[in-house]
């Protein structure tokens, strides 16, 4: 028998290189600028794309294999959950408000990330980052779909889920998350990577996903927690990509530092505002709470974020400029925001409610310096009105921040009794902001933010013309079903009746 010629032993790294970056070539029939046209306009200088270190090494065959295993498990569990009326194992149907917000505001963000990563996965002229971004692009559509599928069964039994696609584009509070993702996608490829790949996936994702998925686990929501576990290994890849991107850009040229720092400042504050929704979930919406927003911030913000920025200091990166204002807001934001949601609950496709005395005691324990002093009295007043049959509703239009699109419900960083309000005049028009951070972002790119679609002015245009009923029709909100106080809602009645069927013999 012939002697086989021994093949060269290739290391993992070399082999992966042959499977990815060796596929690329220098074009000669078109210039590189023509094929990769968006590489220069942001001012980022990249001298050598080969210096890119692959954050993970996954060939497509392995990707299909691992992902398919996870998919099989995921769908087996949510099928069983649906078949066995798993929704009756929830602690309480109040929990579903958090899920409704998630489906209306966050899942569409997963889809946007899918498209955004497809774009940057095409535009970077280096195979290494292209492949990593493309894998994230396909992961993100996975996340959008598994979330929709996990929540689909809740939609069959509960209100508020049914119009998520309409509300994504039309209802006022989803434009907070939508404008965030639109902002990142309308930025250039490098900024998109700092916005989503780094700031969102690396710095902030723990503050979003860990509370959400732990909240699901604590409250008996097997469908969502299964999604969370299933997405975990994807997220780990996305985080390593986010970190590699920032290091790569900073190592390529010292001129990149101020640009990147500016983006970190911007996207930290943008992200922090979006997370306001999570703070209300953690402190108010979970019947069985995991930890307070303050505690989550101390772990995932202060500890983890602090370590990260210490690590990045060797590149000259400083902690984001809004960091101190964020810290000052932590003990206030969930209360201010939930009070806002309650008074505008006629216009939300989820329920809010007045916290019980026991809940207020819990909040007082978690927020010893702020809750009893500033927020318990307001809830008590609201409760008195509700008990008297005249519940507090604010039909006045919220003043929305031109940048983050949240209503201006937040207070001055150093004075919790004074609502924070900023104004900038640009080309003769007045623009309103909720904070210094948002004003600063606007003033850096006014031509971008004057384009923002603000949902409140829409109320006075065709086809609504100031008519609340018409507006509800336009946002597919069913009055008396999707909105308002949880107490007395259909969701509450149905959940209690069904649970009675399942747990008693009445």
């Amino acid at each position: 028998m012939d002697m086989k010629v021994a093949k060269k032993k290739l290391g993992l790294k070399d082999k992966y290189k042959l499977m990815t970056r060796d596929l690329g070539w220098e074009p000669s029939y078109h210039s590189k600028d023509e094929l990769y046209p968006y590489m220069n306009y942001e001012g980022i200088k990249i001298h050598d794309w080969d210096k890119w270190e692959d954050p993970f090494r996954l060939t497509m065959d392995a990707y299909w294999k691992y992902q398919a295993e996870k998919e099989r498990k995921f769908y087996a569990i949510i099928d069983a959950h649906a078949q066995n009326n798993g929704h009756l194992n929830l602690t309480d149907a109040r929990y579903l408000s958090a899920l409704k917000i998630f489906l209306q505001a966050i899942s569409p963000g997963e889809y946007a990330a899918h498209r955004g990563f497809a774009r940057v996965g095409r535009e970077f002229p280096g195979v290494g980052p292209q492949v990593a971004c493309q894998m994230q692009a396909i992961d993100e559509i996975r996340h959008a779909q598994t979330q929709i599928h996990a929540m689909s069964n809740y939609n069959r039994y509960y209100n508020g889920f049914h119009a998520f696609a309409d509300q994504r584009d039309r209802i006022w509070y989803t434009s907070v998350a939508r404008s965030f993702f639109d902002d990142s996608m309308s930025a250039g490829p490098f900024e998109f990577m700092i916005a989503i790949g780094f700031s969102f996936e690396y710095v902030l994702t723990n503050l979003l996903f860990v509370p959400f998925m732990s909240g699901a686990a604590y409250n008996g929501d097997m469908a969502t927690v299964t999604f969370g576990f299933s997405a975990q290994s994807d997220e780990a890849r996305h985080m390593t990509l986010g970190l590699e991107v920032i290091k790569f850009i900073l190592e390529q040229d010292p001129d990149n530092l101020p640009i990147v720092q500016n983006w970190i400042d911007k996207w930290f504050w943008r992200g922090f505002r979006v997370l306001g929704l999570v703070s209300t979930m953690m402190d108010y919406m979970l019947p069985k709470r995991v930890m307070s927003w303050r505690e989550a911030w101390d772990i995932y913000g202060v500890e983890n974020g602090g370590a990260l920025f210490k690590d990045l200091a060797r590149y000259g990166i400083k902690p984001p400029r809004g960091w101190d204002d964020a810290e000052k807001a932590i003990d206030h934001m969930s209360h201010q925001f939930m009070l806002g949601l309650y008074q505008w609950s006629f216009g939300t496709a989820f329920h809010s409610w007045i916290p019980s005395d026991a809940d207020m005691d819990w909040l007082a324990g978690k927020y010893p310096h702020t809750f009893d002093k500033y927020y318990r009295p307001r809830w008590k007043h609201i409760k008195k009105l509700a008990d008297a049959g005249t519940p507090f509703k604010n039909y006045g239009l919220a003043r929305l921040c031109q940048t983050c699109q949240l209503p201006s419900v937040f207070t001055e960083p150093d004075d919790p009794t004074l609502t924070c309000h900023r104004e900038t005049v640009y080309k003769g028009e007045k623009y309103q902001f909720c904070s210094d951070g948002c004003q600063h972002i606007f003033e850096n790119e006014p031509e971008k933010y004057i384009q923002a679609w603000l949902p409140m002015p829409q109320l006075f245009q065709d086809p609504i013309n100031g008519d609340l009923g018409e507006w509800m029709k336009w946002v597919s909100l069913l009055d008396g079903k999707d909105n308002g106080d949880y107490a007395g809602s259909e969701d509450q009645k149905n959940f209690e009746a069904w649970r009675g069927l399942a747990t008693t013999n009445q």
Partner: protein
Amino acid sequence: MQIDLRTVAIQPQRQAFDHLVRRFGDKAASRYQEGSYDIQAAENLHYRPTWDPDHQLYDASLTRIVMADWYALKDPRQFYYSTYTLTRARQQETAEANFSFVESRGLADMLSDELRAVALNVLVPLRHAAWGANQNNTTVCGYGYGAIFTQPCMYHAMDNLGIAQYLSRLGLLLGDTEALDAGKKAWLDDASWQPLRRYVEDCLACRDPFELFVAQNLALDGLLYPLVYERIVDQHLSAQGASAVAMLTQFMSDWFDETRKWVDAVIKVAAAESDANRAVLTEWTRQWSARAASAMVPVVELALGSGADEAVGEQLEAFRARVLKTGITL
């Protein structure tokens, strides 16, 4: 005897999400429908792209094709992420088994030098073409309109990458790293490959997502896959005893059979939408397939020599018959 388990019966409040009820009626929706229809933001987009201020963030006018409803471009395979990955995971198991069969039996070493050279010369440079295809489909996914159309393009792009990687493994198995180096050199410099490389680079410069879909997935792949994997590998090489190569490219043959059904369905619906669409699609298909055919001639020559003209001519005939069924007369 059948025993019916009793469960607590609860009356559902509704069957499906509103946007799916509007499209398909008041009944339970499939997971494909839930994961695909209307999940791209469509209204009140906030900011115009700083990289392209003349357009919206998602903009149907980036292409000359006009659809009243982009969600008409359904994928007959009904692939969403789960069904897609499960399908490919099964196929990669087969591919893995084929590679290890060829390796463990030493079948690669039994190939004659001549046939091995043909296989390497034709197949290895195609890993670069597949990488081009990956980028092109990523473009269509990134800039096309409507999730039902763009979603399968992302899957297609990842398939293109997978194919580039299978071709790389084939090269390593039959000729080690030298084969990959030689293949890249041929792709960059050899006269045989320049028309095809030029075609791929022209595609990379094309920014009309639907035209790119036609140029890459219909015109080029519609000729390249049957010519290379059916005629050259499955017929020409196998007939001479090199069926080991066909085992290594089974994934590509199966993949082409499956994906062309989706490509045809998309073209057929878009062409049936209007005479204007049909005219544009006909123009694109004619131009790009004529170029693809002439780019393929010197590649096919590497295996079939003087028979290349005839083979490409026949394939072009078959291609005409194929697109005729989608409403396009060449």
